[in-house]
């Protein structure tokens, strides 16, 4: 029983992102730096597209 609990906990630690939500934290999406990065990404993907064999959504 205990070993099952340990195993489950270990699996969670390996798989989980574990980021903690902070209500007071701001979203930085409107920062110029990130806005420019998105524009660059759009240009790159517009030019080269996406992989042809992207794995199916699970």
């Amino acid at each position, binding site marked *: 029983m205990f070993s099952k609990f340990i195993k489950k906990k270990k699996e969670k630690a*390996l*798989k*989980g*992102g*574990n*980021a*903690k*939500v*902070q*209500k007071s*934290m*701001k*979203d*930085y*999406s409107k*920062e*110029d*730096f*990130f806005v420019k*990065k*998105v524009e*660059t*990404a*759009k240009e*790159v*993907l*517009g*030019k*080269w*597209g*996406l*992989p*042809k064999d*992207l*794995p*199916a*959504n*699970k």
Partner: protein
Amino acid sequence: MNLDRYDCFTDPTFASFSFDSVGPNGTIKKIVNYQPIPDAVWPDGRQVVNLGFGDWNEEEQKVDDSTASNNQDRDKILATVACTIISYCEEYGNLPIFAQGSSPARTRLYQMGINAHLSEVEKLFVIYGLFNGSWKKFEPGLNYDAFLVIKK
């Protein structure tokens, strides 16, 4: 990820994450941001998302990546960024995530981090690299221009 990583925090929308890099050059606040890339939608409807990564410049009150922090914690930082991908995907689903450094040197730095822990990384993610204008499954030894990461 079974790698050492920093505690990280997210805003309530899971669009931005922050954590502190601690090392010989002090404490540097790192910001990871996820935003949909306009017009980049996979045929099955999945939105492609950009991963932006920079330092919070306290003096100028803005994000940038103009300085190399040299805090000797590259792998810990990359493991923490990987954890933000997992957190983001737990919230929004397994969306393809595009990542590119601000310079070829920075993109190479990401690549070295992936290479160093490839067996760990491949357990959790499928990674493609943009090489000479075409996307290939990531393999060591090639210098890629950008990456596309999909959580398994």
